[in-house]
């Protein structure tokens, strides 16, 4: 009988070659953990190459999960458990592992040739270099092949199931149920039942190995977290974002039209929405990024909710068309799933360095609304907000997600759709003015006095035929105008329209004793939250706030910032929000904390940095 020990939280990292199926393994472990009721957060990390040379350091793919019996905010700074499928995975990830941590290692791959490939002169399993860790050497491939000897699968297919053996073993170690994974495998390999059964057998063999092998004396349990009542699911940012777009179609009653060109890490949004035609969602995979946004804008003109999704390099290409949308004053949702740049940069790694591009990366005075989700599940809500603003104010809205949010997952308390906001639109159907002769006429740039939005008359509406274009338009009539005073008026009016967008106030979390505010935006919400908790646990006072609305910023922003001696702004860029704050709020003492390593902040480093500012100024 094994001993069972209770833990409050664990961080596990699965690491292997990109061909070893580590993302799938991590996904399944996540699903099991979610099912058990733990709170969790995940961080997939994989190379840009689809299949880098096998067994090499650049080919290592990993998946980290942090799960706990309390609510948590990040995928964890340091793993306590490392599953290493080969020497490259061990070498690439060992430096992150907590001292004294557990390593489950696939010994079958520790051949002289594989060790040499990654620069190990001696076998680390034998030379004492892992003495500070608890190492469990397991012949994962050999055991899997042996377990599947009776199954009608090739040796190669049997060997490929070793990730399920590993999953079975780790599931046993942390007392996770595997039934859902068995169901999943039957579905995934529906066309190949023999492969499905082999994978299930490998999964069970891994579980049984844990139970019988004497090496594993202790088993762990992490009890369910006390989350708010409701129905939960696990969701990645890209999925939640795609569902948010779908929901915006339902909430507005408009057909959704997505124009997109494949690009990492945004392509999954295109894939997801392509599956949802039943909601009246049309997806066009365009010939390039420019055509993708052009088609979306054409559809918006026609009365659809036009959307385009991309990453930084694609957004740069769309810039001219977004400016046209500013001039046409039509709704257009633009999603930038940011990745590390410039240029191709690190396509699978995260960064927040497109904020200034989102704000100003167009020609002329071309302001647009800019929003940023703060977590994977927030991507759902942020798209509803983006649609609300775009439709009500007839403007392009940029949504800044990033690679961390897009691929990371967290439990999401499912919304009650009865609470779905009504964001329906009234198209223009009648003339709204008179022409020079006093006849009833349609004035496409006569504005709503409240929102400054212009009427949206879709082609096909009798009697409202009109022409719009990129040339400056005369106020009200929309006719071509080269008049200097009119241009000045129109530029200022478009700016006033964006500045006047109704956004909720900034919420401040201050226990009443803080002199320093930490202000974040986007995906740093989790790490900042964890760092703030850490500081408060130590008795260090700090206030925090998070901007989901970057343009316009909430109306109380100036007042909030003015309350604090210092405002620390952690960003995964070299200070872009800080630049905006210094420009907009000159009296505020903004202190930047910046990293551009392609990875999210760890809460520990952030906590240390914040403490440094608080204590030493």
């Amino acid at each position: 009988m094994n001993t069972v020990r209770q833990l409050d939280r664990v961080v596990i990292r699965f690491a292997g070659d990109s061909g070893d199926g580590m993302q799938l393994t991590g996904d399944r472990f996540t699903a099991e953990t979610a099912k058990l009721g733990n709170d969790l957060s995940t961080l997939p990390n994989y190379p840009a190459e689809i299949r880098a040379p096998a067994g090499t350091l650049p080919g290592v793919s990993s998946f980290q999960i942090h799960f706990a019996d309390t609510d948590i905010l990040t995928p964890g700074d340091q793993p306590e458990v490392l599953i290493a499928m080969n020497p490259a995975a061990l070498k690439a990830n060992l430096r992150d592992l907590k001292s004294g941590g557990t390593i489950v290692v696939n010994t079958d791959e520790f051949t002289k040739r594989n060790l040499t490939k990654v620069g190990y002169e001696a076998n680390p399993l034998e030379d004492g270099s892992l003495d500070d860790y608890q190492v469990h050497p397991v012949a994962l491939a050999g055991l899997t092949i042996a377990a599947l000897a009776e199954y009608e699968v090739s040796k190669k297919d049997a060997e490929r199931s070793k990730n399920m053996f590993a999953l079975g073993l780790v599931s046993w170690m942390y007392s996770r149920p595997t039934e859902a994974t068995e169901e999943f495998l039957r579905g995934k390999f529906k066309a190949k039942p023999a492969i499905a059964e082999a994978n299930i057998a490998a999964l069970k063999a891994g579980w049984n190995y844990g139970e019988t092998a004497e090496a594993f004396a202790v088993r762990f349990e992490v009890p369910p977290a006390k989350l708010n009542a409701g129905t939960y699911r696990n969701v990645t940012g890209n999925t939640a974002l795609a569902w948010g777009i779908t929901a915006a179609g339902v909430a507005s009653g408009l057909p959704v039209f997505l124009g997109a060109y494949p690009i990492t890490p945004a392509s999954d949004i295109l894939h997801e929405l392509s599956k949802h035609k039943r909601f009246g969602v049309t997806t066009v995979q365009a010939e390039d990024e420019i055509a993708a946004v052009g088609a979306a804008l054409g559809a918006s003109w026609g009365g659809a909710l036009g959307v385009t999704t991309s990453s930084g390099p694609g957004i740069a290409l769309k810039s001219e068309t977004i400016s046209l949308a500013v001039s046409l004053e039509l709704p257009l949702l633009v999603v930038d799933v940011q990745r590390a740049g410039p240029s191709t940069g690190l396509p699978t790694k995260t960064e927040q360095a497109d904020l200034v591009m989102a704000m100003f990366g167009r020609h002329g005075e071309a302001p647009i609304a800019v929003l940023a989700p703060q977590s994977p599940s927030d991507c759902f809500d942020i798209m509803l907000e983006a649609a609300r603003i775009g439709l009500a104010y007839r403007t392009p809205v940029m949504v800044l997600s990033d690679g961390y949010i897009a691929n990371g997952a967290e439990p999401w308390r499912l919304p009650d759709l009865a609470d779905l906001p009504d964001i329906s639109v009234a198209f223009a159907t009648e003339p709204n003015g008179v022409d020079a002769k006093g006849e009833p006429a349609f004035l496409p740039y006569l504005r709503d006095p409240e929102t400054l939005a212009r009427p949206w008359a879709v082609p096909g509406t009798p009697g409202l035929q009109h022409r719009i274009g990129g040339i400056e338009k005369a106020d009200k009539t929309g006719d071509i105008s080269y008049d200097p005073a009119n241009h000045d008026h129109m530029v200022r009016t478009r700016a006033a329209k964006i500045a006047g967008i109704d956004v909720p106030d900034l919420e401040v979390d201050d226990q009443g004793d803080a002199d320093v505010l930490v202000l974040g935006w986007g995906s740093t919400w989790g790490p900042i939250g964890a760092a703030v908790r850490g500081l408060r646990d130590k008795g260090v006072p700090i206030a925090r706030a998070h901007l989901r609305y970057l343009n316009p910023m909430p109306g109380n922003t100036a007042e909030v910032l003015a309350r604090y001696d210092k405002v620390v702004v952690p960003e995964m860029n070299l200070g872009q929000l800080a630049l905006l704050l210094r420009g907009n709020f000159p009296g505020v003492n903004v202190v930047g904390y910046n990293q551009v390593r392609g990875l999210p902040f760890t809460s520990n480093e952030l906590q240390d940095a914040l403490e440094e500012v608080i204590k030493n100024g």
Partner: protein
Amino acid sequence: MADAVKLEAPKLKAKDFKSTQEVRWCPGCGDYAILAAVQSFLPELGLEREKIAFVSGIGCSSRFPYYLNTYGIHSIHGRAPAIATGLAVSRPDLSVWVVTGDGDALSIGGNHLIHALRRNVNLKILLFNNRIYGLTKGQYSPTSEPGKLTKSSPMGSVDAPFNPLSLALGSEATFVARTLDSDRAHLQEVLRAAAEHEGSAFVEIYQNCPIFNDNAFEVLKNPETRDEAIIRLRNGEPVRFGAADGEKVVVQSGYGLEVRDAADVDEADVVVHKADVDDPAYAFALSRLSGTALDHTPIGVFRNVARPTYDKGVRTQVDEAAAGVDRREALDRLLHSGDTWTVL
């Protein structure tokens, strides 16, 4: 959509399609003739004005939508086919037209043009080819002849030009035609055929720019040369032309076509024009009869074949999937799909 065309077609006139905007092309521009021809042709569509949308890019020709009393977008350089694709896919009840020029469609917007044609989106694309950049005041364009002297090529252009029809045919276009700004009857005949075609229709209109490239098509317009230079294509009829110094015919030659004196050719060897030949090689060979000197220039419909359209394909999938779906209920089911758990 069944309600796209009203059964009782309104008796609209050319003047009903004129907008209130002052037309601002240079005096003598070929665009005036094209505008007048289009305005007097549009009533033939039998559609209410609001059911017609014109989308243009940038360039002299792209001012076109401002002068029509329909819905219109004057967009950005080269992107009209992309914007029109979004509109055509989402609004099957509209008749969507693209107006573009040789620089707009073939240079900055080349990519969108070829992809619209290969997809066979239901768009009517009118390319005004004046073989020069007009709005930017006279640089050589992708259809300018080699050696062209312009402001940006003072020693003569070293660019090799596109043959727009060859490009369209290479892009799998299902309808390809050419006409002239100055021949209103022919222009309208081609517009009619284009309008009737389901899918992308590509119409090259030779258009004179009197300021920067005057008389570029003189050989096709001068009564002394035009009969010998123009080959009028008529479906089902032998391809013959010319008058003054004897009749000419088009015959097969090697892998292509060539012009011969009719007197030297057996009647049975004269090519009979068939725009609906599935193999684009024939239309391509026709497009190669005229070089940059325009010596033997076929006009009319080169190719007109049926192929499923992109926009209908996209809509069919969405319509089939969405039929009878309660979207709110389906959204609830989507959110609850897969692994979920409940906390009490």
